[in-house]
């Protein structure tokens, strides 16, 4: 073992400003709400001030003592439905359809309104884990900006007029076998919808079905065809892989198709009982920091266009056809050599995975390397893709647009999707669309595409409709409605039924019919009810396809000229479909911590070269098109490369999402869907304020300078150091003297452990917390003032050289301190200690002094400076969790360990005259975590899962030296570096 300093003592930093010791950062550190003293309103005159004081005193007197409760109505059912007991939540199974693999859900329903999605543990493709999008789905359902009517050329119309219009048009098509009929869908994961589309093509043999989705698996598909001659999707089994090389594959980011991968991968990172034999090793090559890069043992920053050369070098070292060792002095040479050796040494237990945006050649090489490593069937399987009737999306759209321009398309039916916004810029989809005589569009919102069509049909949300959806492993999930369509929306099945001239056939009947084929006639009713109850049809997972590699014919990608331009979807609003979701806009992106904006990411060196700072507005030109957007200088970003985030700059997203960020699709051409070269940049001289939370809530500011490093919030060690001594954190023995009365001893003592080795910072917990606890959205201007309301935040730290830093992340909920600094300073006892160890927060007692937030060393308290909760939008009232108070202006709030869930479990335990079982209470963040990084339970019970984790040698408390005795503790991060690369 070398004499390097333990990693935990090396300084970590939050932002480049902190790294460079900028004054602005130092100033921010001093206050949690740096601009709280800044005047929000104009300075009032002395006289106005006195008047206001007098009035508020008088009002305080009136409101505190003489409030008469308003009279309320009770409205029981006329005829009550079966099983529904007022005040008790019910859970129904459904699935969230998603290209790349749907996710199984159990949705909590209060009196018929869905309020919260949990994972369906019986679903083999998602294992009970969920992601940010399924957590945010409830807000999407109740979004007041959803399209609420069917429109004909912009005017409200009826469903029957739509039926008449379509019938007439289709009658004309029947004579020409549908030669002028085209249907454009997104990727289809519903076998029922696929069957309907195929039936349509059978009915109109000259018609065509096209597919376009801006984020698609064209490259993976082409790669599989090159390597194996058939379209198969790789399903990695990370639980069985000892060494994983990721070529820009962000498999630890939140997405429905990733949740199982995250669980399996995290299973190999968790160290239990002081042992480390389990630990795998992850190498990541990528152009900008990602969740996967942050979790890596070795991360190398490389331009996305250079990754192909690295992949060829890796393939060459492993003796795969198509490999090319490349120049000896290449920046990746040493790294690839070490990775190749490591892979070769773990045959059958080693794996290479590739990101969707990498060219087909990289996908092909990776699959061939997997074959060479003898890993197929062991730690990677090849399955038919979850997407049905897969096709080359880019080609499919190009053909369609060509035909539209030639006037061959007479009827175009757009089933969801928003191609006017997200089609490649060079195709001019909007221009081609104008040439189609009859255009119909099914969509949730009146979006950019809806504007340009004849018929806009308002779509039913997936929580309002019947359908089926395949998981990543092929498992067929049932999509069950939780509520009748709020605005009489229609699903894709109902639209297709119209095209098939069966307008009376409901989606439910269509689905039942297709399920009958799978479940058989015998006992169908019983099996069908079971399938709907369970949310899936059992035994529908795909069998692995047997594949054999062949010598691929690989095209060489042309060399980079000028600046590289990279297009990537946003981790939260994705390709733009969630652009009106306030939770997703406001949640900090896992690596940039940006809210309410996308930015142009570039490296420190490139920024220095062009004299750019974060916030400078840049004009980017690419293939004759231009856009402007703010720069965000990103540590760990590749040089000479610009990353543009898709999904923003929407014109017609809704009130929340309109005009947020810039539209990167404006530059994305069909030749550069992933990345392209030859971009130029120019500083416009303007600046733009970006709301990033990376410098907010810094915790180590009050620590003595000489001890800051050893008291670092994130503790990290290498596995070698862990093996030497698993007690990574020096245990400080404190003399437990206090002037305060003895802590109350309740029946239980709640505590939490967060495993930093398993957490990937995907953010599902943050969205889940917002959904469960009615956390309000505050908007960009308030975030800039440091007033974000998230009860749970995920801090991100860099360490080392900004060019290629190590990245660490850490979720921070309330620590529920036993010696809570917040409690002792509250003048009105609005925050008090429960006998079970919670720092209770009583909103109706809080007078808003904010002393508690000031005294919280972890900075987890959140204050309602204004009335942030939306009291007015009727549909949003339905979205709220009725078990949690909706907070008003002027009160403090914070994480409660989901006390409503604790109380729910406590009451059912008491009614059954037993103790609460271990694992019976799952906090919202814990329940959704794909990595199972969070454990919660009774720490007084030595047999509880959480107690066992607290007994692990690498368990530590945050800022333990302050003697706050936090109930939330962490398991230190242990990395498994390759010694060859470390020296």
């Amino acid at each position, binding site marked *: 073992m070398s004499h390097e300093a333990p990693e935990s003592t090396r300084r970590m930093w939050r932002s480049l400003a902190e790294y460079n010791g900028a004054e602005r950062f130092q100033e921010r550190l001093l206050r949690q709400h740096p601009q709280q003293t800044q005047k929000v309103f104009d300075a009032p005159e002395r006289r106005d001030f006195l008047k206001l004081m007098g009035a508020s005193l008088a009002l305080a007197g009136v409101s505190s003592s003489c409030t*008469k*409760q308003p009279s309320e109505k009770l409205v029981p059912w*006329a005829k*009550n439905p079966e099983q529904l007991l007022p005040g008790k939540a019910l859970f129904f199974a459904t699935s969230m359809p998603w290209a790349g693999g749907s996710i199984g859900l159990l949705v909590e329903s209060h009196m018929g309104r869905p309020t919260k999605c949990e994972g369906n543990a019986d679903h083999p493709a998602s294992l009970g884990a969920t992601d940010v999008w399924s957590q945010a789905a409830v807000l999407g359902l109740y979004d007041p900006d959803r399209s609420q009517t069917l429109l004909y050329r912009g005017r409200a119309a009826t469903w029957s007029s739509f039926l008449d219009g379509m019938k007439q048009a289709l009658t004309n098509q029947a004579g020409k076998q549908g030669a002028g009929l085209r249907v454009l869908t997104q990727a289809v994961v519903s076998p029922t919808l696929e069957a309907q589309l195929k039936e349509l093509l059978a009915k109109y043999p000259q018609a065509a079905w096209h597919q376009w989705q801006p984020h698609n698996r064209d490259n993976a598909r082409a790669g599989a065809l090159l390597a194996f001659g058939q379209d198969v999707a790789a399903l990695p089994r990370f639980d069985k892989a000892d060494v994983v090389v990721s070529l820009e594959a962000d498999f630890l980011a939140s997405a429905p198709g990733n949740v199982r991968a995250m669980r399996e991968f995290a299973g190999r990172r968790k160290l239990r009982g002081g042992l480390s034999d389990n630990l795998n090793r992850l190498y990541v090559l990528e152009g900008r920091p990602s969740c996967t890069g942050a979790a890596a043992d070795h991360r190398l920053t490389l331009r996305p266009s250079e990754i192909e050369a690295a992949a060829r070098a890796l393939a060459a070292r492993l003796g795969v056809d198509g490999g090319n060792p490349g120049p000896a002095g290449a920046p990746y040479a040493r790294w690839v050599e070490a990775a190749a050796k490591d892979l070769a040494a773990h045959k059958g237990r080693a794996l290479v995975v590739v990101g969707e945006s990498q060219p087909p050649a990289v996908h092909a090489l990776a699959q061939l390397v997997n074959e060479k490593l003898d890993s197929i069937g062991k730690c990677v399987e090849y399955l038919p893709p979850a997407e049905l009737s897969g096709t080359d999306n880019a080609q499919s759209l190009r053909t369609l647009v060509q035909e539209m321009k030639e006037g061959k398309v007479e009827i175009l039916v757009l089933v969801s999707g928003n191609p006017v916004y997200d089609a490649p810029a060079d195709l001019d989809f909007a221009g081609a669309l104008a040439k189609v005589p009859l255009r119909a569009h099914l969509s949730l919102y009146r979006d950019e595409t809806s504007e340009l069509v004849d018929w806009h049909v308002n779509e039913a949300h997936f929580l309002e409709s019947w359908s089926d959806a395949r998981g990543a492993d092929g498992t067929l999930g049932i999509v069950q409605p939780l509520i009748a369509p709020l605005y009489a929306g229609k699903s894709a099945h109902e639209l297709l039924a119209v095209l098939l001239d069966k307008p009376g056939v409901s989606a439910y009947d269509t689905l039942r019919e297709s399920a009958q084929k799978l479940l058989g006639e015998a006992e169908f009713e019983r099996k069908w009810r079971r399938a709907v109850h369970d949310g899936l049809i059992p035994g529908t997972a795909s069998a692995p396809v047997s594949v054999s590699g062949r010598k691929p014919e690989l095209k060489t990608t042309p060399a980079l000229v000028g600046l590289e331009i990279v297009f990537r979807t946003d981790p939260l609003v994705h390709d733009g479909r969630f652009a009106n979701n306030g939770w997703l806009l406001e949640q900090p992106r896992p690596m940039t911590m940006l809210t309410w904006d996308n930015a142009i990411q570039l490296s420190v060196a490139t920024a220095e070269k062009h004299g750019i700072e974060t916030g400078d507005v840049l004009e980017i030109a690419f293939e004759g098109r231009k856009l402007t957007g703010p720069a965000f200088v990103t540590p760990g970003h590749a040089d000479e490369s610009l990353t543009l985030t898709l999904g923003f700059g929407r014109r017609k997203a809704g009130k929340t999402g309109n005009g947020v960020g810039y539209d990167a699709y404006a530059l994305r051409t069909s030749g550069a869907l992933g990345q392209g070269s030859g971009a130029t940049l120019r500083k416009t001289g303007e600046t733009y304020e970006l709301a990033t939370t990376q410098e907010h809530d810094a915790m180590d500011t009050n620590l003595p300078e000489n001890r800051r490093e050893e008291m670092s919030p994130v503790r990290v060690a290498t596995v070698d150091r862990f093996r030497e001594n698993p007690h990574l954190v020096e245990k400080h023995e404190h003399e437990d003297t206090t002037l305060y009365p003895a802590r109350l001893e309740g029946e239980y003592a709640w505590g939490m452990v967060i495993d930093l080795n398993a957490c990937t910072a995907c953010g599902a917990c943050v969205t889940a917390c917002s959904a469960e606890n009615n956390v309000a959205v505050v908007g960009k201007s308030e975030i800039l003032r440091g007033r974000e309301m998230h009860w749970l935040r995920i801090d991100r730290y860099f360490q080392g050289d900004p060019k290629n830093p190590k990245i660490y992340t850490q979720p921070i909920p309330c620590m529920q301190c036993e010696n809570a600094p917040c409690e002792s300073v509250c003048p009105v006892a609005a925050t008090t200690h429960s006998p079970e160890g919670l720092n*209770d927060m009583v909103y109706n007692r809080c007078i808003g002094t904010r002393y508690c937030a000031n005294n919280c060393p972890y900075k987890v308290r959140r204050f309602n400076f204004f009335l942030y909760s939306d009291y007015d939008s009727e549909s949003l009232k339905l979205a709220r969790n009725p078990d949690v108070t909706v907070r008003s202006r002027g009160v403090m709030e914070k994480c409660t360990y989901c*006390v409503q869930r604790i109380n729910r479990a406590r009451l059912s335990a008491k009614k059954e005259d037993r103790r609460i079982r271990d694992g019976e209470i799952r906090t919202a963040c814990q329940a959704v975590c794909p990595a199972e990084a969070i454990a919660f339970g009774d720490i007084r019970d030595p047999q509880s899962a959480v107690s066992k984790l607290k007994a692990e040698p690498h368990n530590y408390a945050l800022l333990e030296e302050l003697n706050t005795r936090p109930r939330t503790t962490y398991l230190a991060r242990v990395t498994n570096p390759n010694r060859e690369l470390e020296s």
Partner: protein
Amino acid sequence: MAQIFAPSTNTLSKVSIVAGALIAGTGAFALTTANRWPWISNVEVAVEQGIPFSHKHHVAGLGIDCRFCHTAVEESAVAGIPPVKTCMGCHSVVWKDAPMLEPLRESYRTDVPLQWTRVHDLPDFAYFNHSIHLKKGIGCESCHGRVDTMPLMWKVNSLNMEWCLACHRNPQDFVRPREQVTTMGWDPMHPEASGSSLPPMSQAELGPKLVQEYKIQSQTHCSTCHR
């Protein structure tokens, strides 16, 4: 030089000191007790309803148990107001043509729910659960009073926090045998009047026994009710 103050000033000043103190005291008293006055708290104010439903008639007159209509009370946080269907179970047979019940029949025909005015209405930041109180032997009567004497419903207790805490601090003063939770007029000194086979004893004797038997904890921390 003439006197500035007339002799009466002495009296006036004394009176005004006393009166000032009295007025201030009364004001302070009014402010602090206002929440307890019936015109604020609605205690003992009978609430008019669209259909003048009488608990007195149904409970005392007919002897219907609370749980016959309030079906969720043992399972859920709320007791549950019966759907029209429950009413019609009897009223499609008895009093089936009574004009007074026309709104009921109309609701049943049209499926448009009836609207009742709330009598007991806790603030939304207090999370009360009926089922656990029944399980722990707190009778309906303890909070809702002698419902069997009310032709129209009224509150007998303020439902203020101080009133909640009075019982949460001293549950032994209010607990009763579980099987008697829906009994009106339960008296531990006369259990036989409620059909109980328990020997007569005082609440001071019975209360602590039941507290122990039912494992009643005196829950007074904030998150018991507020979250």
